[in-house]
């Protein structure tokens, strides 16, 4: 039995190693041909003219994620405080499953709703030609990261010892003061972990934002069509010639994205470790 379990564990490790090695091997050639600086800091991505600069893609991924965090974290955090501390039991019993349901919706459905509702709405409100834009992607991503932020923050808030809050209330602090000045600081590393997890989810998302972002490799601007690192790969993979520089460059984008996500994961582990020690 022991052997079987070990084997199962090794399978997961094996796949991680396999994917890492494969990405590095297939991602390096294009970077070497294009040059690392040209690849990372080139402002033009145009496979037709043999220009492979992914700076617009990198910046779009960073801005898009930052925007989603800026909108999603406050909403998610306040929802978590409400759920953990303030909500009447009946309300919480409805709200909590709803949040988990939000986590279960496939990303293509988020994309579909974004494409059919959000994009036309933005087109009309802002008088844009199309409406597919960084803004639309940020809004969709913000909703998508809500469930992970809410549930992780809520767990962290609920783990705060009751005595802390009782002491604060006994000293004459109001409930609100107690939640935000005692409970939240005590749960801060758990909340930080929630934020990092949200970042991870946002930066790795492809399907939903491909349907609302417009997919032109412009330098990021709120109302303009943009291309993320993830969508950069998926939109051009189909028709790129096997073995061509374009195909190789797509793998290199994958490598860059992989490094981004590794970095975020390492950071998440650091945060969680600090929480354990605290």
């Amino acid at each position, binding site marked *: 039995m022991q052997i079987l379990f070990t084997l199962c564990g090794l399978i997961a490790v094996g796949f991680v190693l396999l994917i890492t090695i494969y990405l590095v091997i297939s991602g390096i050639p294009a970077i070497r041909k294009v040059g690392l600086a040209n690849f990372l800091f080139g402002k033009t991505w145009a496979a037709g*003219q043999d220009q492979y600069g992914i700076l617009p893609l990198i910046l779009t991924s960073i801005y898009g994620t930052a925007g989603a965090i800026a909108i999603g974290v406050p909403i998610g955090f306040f929802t978590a405080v409400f759920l953990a501390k303030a909500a009447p039991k009946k309300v919480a019993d409805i709200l909590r499953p709803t949040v988990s349901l939000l986590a279960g919706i496939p990303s293509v459905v988020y994309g579909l709703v974004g494409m*059919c509702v959000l994009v*036309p709405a933005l087109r009309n409100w802002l*008088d844009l030609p199309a409406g597919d834009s960084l803004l639309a992607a940020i809004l969709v991503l913000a909703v998508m990261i809500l469930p992970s932020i809410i549930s992780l923050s809520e767990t962290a808030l609920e783990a705060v010892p009751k005595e802390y809050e009782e002491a604060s209330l006994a000293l004459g602090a109001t409930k609100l003061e107690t939640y935000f000045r005692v409970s939240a600081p005590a749960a801060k590393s758990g909340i930080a972990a929630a934020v990092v997890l949200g970042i991870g989810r946002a930066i790795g998302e492809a399907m939903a934002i491909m349907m609302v972002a417009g*997919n032109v490799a412009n330098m990021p601007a709120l109302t303009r*069509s943009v291309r993320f690192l993830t969508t950069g790969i998926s939109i051009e993979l189909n028709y790129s010639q096997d073995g061509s520089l374009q195909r190789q460059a797509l793998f290199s984008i994958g490598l860059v994205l992989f490094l981004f996500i590794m970095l975020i994961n390492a950071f998440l582990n650091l945060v969680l470790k600090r929480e354990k020690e605290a």
Partner: protein
Amino acid sequence: MKKVVSLALIAALGFSVLAGCSGNQKGGTVNTDGSTSMADVMGALTEAFKEKEPDITVNYSGTGSGSGISGVLDGTCDIGLSSRELKPEEMEQGAVAHVVALDGVAVVVNPQNAVTDLTAEQIADIFTGKISNWSELGGADAPIAVYGREDGSGTRSAFEEIVGVEGACVYTNEYGSTGDVIGNVASNENAIGYASLSAVDSSVAAAKINGVAPSEATVKDGSYTIQRPFVMVTKEGVELSAAAQAFLDFASSEEAAEYITAAGAVYPN
């Protein structure tokens, strides 16, 4: 183990020599090389040809029209494939064109759009961003959303090449498939896009170019200008192998028409 492998290799080599001999009579290999846009048409033709002549293998490698033409001139392949007309200097070197199909690209707009007739120049101006509002073309006062395909798409390279806006297009949105372009043009009144003629349906309106509506007939008689030929190229004075000749004959025959149409192109004769 090694012995077995080497024996097997020797046997395989022996058979391939035999296969090579018989190739001169009825079987053989045809190497074609060139245009990536012709992948669909070539796929349909080779598949149909395989059923007719199971002994002949047709290889296709998509390297681009230019290298396909130089390939046949250098003798590195039997038939070159070009999705543009031959240049005079290529013909001087002995390249001979056999047009097997025509490819029309339709410019599509939303059915609500009042602008349905454009000149080739206006289309170039729209796609390069010089014209950015429909009112400049006599339509509603609305910004133009320019939809196109991603880099690497055959439709995109065909359209940009024919209209003369290669690499100069300013797209509002890019999509990964023809269906996406059509669907999104259908849902946005401001949109203009392009799609292979065979993929256009009633959810969008195909614009007239210089007064000519795109159809199989207008592509065939040449009056619809956003089109290009799919050409099989041979070299003057070089006799094709029996297999290559058979494939070329098949591709230009009436029999091939249905496969060419199925692959989304127009049969020229």
